């Protein structure tokens, strides 16, 4: 529900925002507010698709400096206005939705590269920089950020850090939270702070990691320093076909616990395997398909590939060569373009989670069971692949799809939330978490207390201390509007 500002208050806020950023960088025009009312979350897209108006912000503002961000937050505190940071708007969790109206703070004019330190291999940039632009800038110096999310072209640096995002090659290069070294943050009350210059230290708890994953609820990230990596001398792919998913998971486990560091392992469940192999190789097979990628010096890649082949052969994985892997790599983003993009009128959700090697298979079957059994009457189906691997476990990138959901937007929302809750609870009950790399947003915020249990008190205490008026992104991560 949009907070109703009286005319005088409205004029005062506009006047103050113009005073901060200038007339060109504030808008209350309806088309702008409409576009910023729809991020990449299924719900607002469904609303518009079904002819229902989404919840519009009252103002959209485009600051260019952290000082401007600070002053905007001070205005928001004065008038008790919600502030929703917006980067690329590509969140699938409703993280950037202005569900209580207020101010959309678009960070994309904070788009400067501050420094590329070639000696230390780090890059410092403002948080609104486009992901692809940042990658191009470091590529020019022979480096890569190593972060290749599907939304690389659409998203911003701040958008990577806000929900602890992850990219295709995270198995080698890490998630956004692993790459970040330090941050500049504007606190909800307007103070501009910097976290410690290095991520590793013995100087108290990590203030850095408090803000990474905070999804705009604890302040606005305005600048970040990331670790970069050298562009690899050699990139190679190899693919395998296992009898079933269990064998594939075991192969992945052996690779990771042997402390090999492939750039990527993608293992498809049996349902996805049929589609994926048909797409890349044009043949119909049964089993579980795996692509493994390697980055680095040629000699290292040779050795790593040989070791991976040995492990896979030990589990009777059929070697399918390198062509299919390249095909996947070269077309890895094709799925995100319409009409192949999973989109309306279907209902869908990526319910990714992560757990240890001991738990992950249990989680997969628990989720598949609950989605396909409980929602049988909706012909819901479940498919998955495992694509971000850790030394101790793996992320399952799983999705539910309902091809013909209810047409009524309210009923559609209820069904959507029920499926999500069941899937997320199945993850948590079996040792997983609500989410691995898309974040929480409004979609999963209501389940955060369950996830954290008594630990939620610590989370809420931090929120209350940093954001006494509750202006920052209310309704997200489970934090309430005041």
């Amino acid at each position, binding site marked *: 529900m949009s907070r109703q500002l009286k005319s005088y208050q409205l004029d005062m806020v506009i006047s103050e925002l113009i005073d901060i950023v200038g007339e060109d960088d504030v808008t209350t025009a309806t088309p702008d507010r409409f576009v910023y009312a729809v991020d990449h979350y299924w719900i607002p897209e469904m609303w518009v698709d079904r002819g229902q108006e989404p919840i519009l912000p009252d103002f959209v503002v485009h600051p260019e400096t952290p000082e401007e961000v600070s002053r905007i937050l001070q205005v928001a505190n004065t008038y008790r206005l919600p502030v929703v940071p917006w980067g690329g708007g590509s969140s699938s969790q409703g993280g950037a939705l202005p569900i209580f109206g207020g101010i959309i703070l678009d960070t994309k004019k904070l788009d400067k590269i501050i420094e590329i330190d070639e000696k230390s291999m780090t890059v410092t940039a403002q948080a609104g920089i486009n992901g692809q632009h940042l990658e191009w800038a470091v590529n020019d110096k022979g480096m890569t950020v190593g972060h290749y999310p599907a939304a690389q*072209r659409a998203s911003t640096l701040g958008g990577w850090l806000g929900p602890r995002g992850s990219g295709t090659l995270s198995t080698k290069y890490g998630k956004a939270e692993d790459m970040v070294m330090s941050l500049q943050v504007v606190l909800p009350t307007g103070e501009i702070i910097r976290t410690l210059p290095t991520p590793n230290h013995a100087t108290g708890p990590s203030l850095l990691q408090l803000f990474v994953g905070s999804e705009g609820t604890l302040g606005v990230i305005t600048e970040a320093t990331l670790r970069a990596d050298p562009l690899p001398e050699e990139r190679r792919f190899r693919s395998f076909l296992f009898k079933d998913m269990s064998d594939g998971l075991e192969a992945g486990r052996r690779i990771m616990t042997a402390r090999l560091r492939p750039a990527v392992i993608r293992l498809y469940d049996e349902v996805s395997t049929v589609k994926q192999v048909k797409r890349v190789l044009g043949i119909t097979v049964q089993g579980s398909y795996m692509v493994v990628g390697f980055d680095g010096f040629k000699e290292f890649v040779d050795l790593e590939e040989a070791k991976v082949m040995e492990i896979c052969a030990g589990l009777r994985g059929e070697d399918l060569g390198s062509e299919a892997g390249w095909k996947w790599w070269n077309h890895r983003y094709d799925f995100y373009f319409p009409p192949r993009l999973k989109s309306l009128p279907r209902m869908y959700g990526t319910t990714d989670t992560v757990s240890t090697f001991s738990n992950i298979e249990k989680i997969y079957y628990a989720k598949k069971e609950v989605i396909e059994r409980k929602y049988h009457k909706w012909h819901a189906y479940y498919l998955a692949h495992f694509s971000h691997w850790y030394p101790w476990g793996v992320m399952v990138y799983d999705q539910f799809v309902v091809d013909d959901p209810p047409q009524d937007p309210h009923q559609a929302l209820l069904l959507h939330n029920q499926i999500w809750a069941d899937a997320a609870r199945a993850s948590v009950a079996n040792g997983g978490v609500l989410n691995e790399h898309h974040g929480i947003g409004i979609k999963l915020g209501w389940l955060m207390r369950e996830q954290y249990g008594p630990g939620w008190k610590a989370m809420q205490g931090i929120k209350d201390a940093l954001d006494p008026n509750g202006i920052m992104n209310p309704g997200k991560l489970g934090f309430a509007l005041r």
Partner: protein
Amino acid sequence: MVFEEFEETIMACRMCLMCRHACTVSNVTQRDTNLPRGKALMLFAQQAGLLKWDERAVEIVYQCTNCHLCREWCVKGWDIAPVMLAARADVVEKGMAPQGAVLIRDNIARSGNPYGDAESQLGDWVEALTDPRRSRGAGSEGERVIEAETADVLFYAGCTTAYRRPEMARAAVALLQHIGVDLTMLRDEPCCGEPLYVMGFRSEARAQAERTMERIRQTGARTVVCSCPTCIHTFRVDYPEWGVDVPEDVRFVHVSEYLAEELNAGRLAFTRAQDLSLTYHDPCSLGRELGIYEAPRQVLEAVPGVELREMRLNRQHSPCCGNGGGVLATDFQLAYGAGRNAGEIVLETGADVLVTACPSCKHSLMKHVQGMEVLDIAELVERAL
């Protein structure tokens, strides 16, 4: 009408953000409303009755440089540019055309060109072209050829060349004279009509096209050479689509194509080495619209002493100069910002010279590549004769 004509594109683009990094306009404004996704979402919402046309909606529709970069980065090739042009036609029909668009229409009606410059200037300028000192060896024959009313080859300058970058036409004519073609020009050269079309005045564009085609027909030329790739695109692609009767035996070629043809036929040779590094900027109309990427490169690489340094983004990914889609007339700041962004990519090459092949591109980029000389392809080639 836009929704009916482009429903599929609107339905696709409204849910996709994958061209954000490339969109010329949103990379300046940084507003999501300016992305193809924002534009499509707005048009969808209007169709669904969730949004009304207002001043800002009209502004958004005119904030597109018609560069087609979104299409080039799209796996499925969805393109928001023609959607915006169709939406502008709707805006015109609603009587909501913005001031800049109306000015272009009125200028063409009054003066025959979108800039509103007096028509007689073109005639004076053609006179200047006949100066034998600029004919580079063609001598008096050059004058005679230029003054012919009918000829095998018509050099059609295009309004932006004629009124903003006349040095490009001088160079092109000098080259044509050097080659020794039977050449003519139109002293009353009318606008091709493209500015009217991009501003949404479709019936006016077609009427203008008919007038222009008639004048071209009167010259008896079988080949029309032009410095402006947008005019060439209009003649080659738009006229047939607009239903204008284009004689089958008349071909329209960009100066870079013509030079490549002459080079391959052995009628063009270079004698003066240039000893410089250059980068080449692919104009939107020549590259993405006409698919001509190699002809200009072939010509440039044939110039002795030239080191061609490709820009990081080249060919189909070449940055837009910002002057396309009528944006220069409706939103100067936006055009300037896009030019600045393109200029940064040009400057990364560290080349001595930027060569482009479009008067609008040259006009924009020369403001944004300080320390670098900016030349049209014909100007560079003229130096090497």
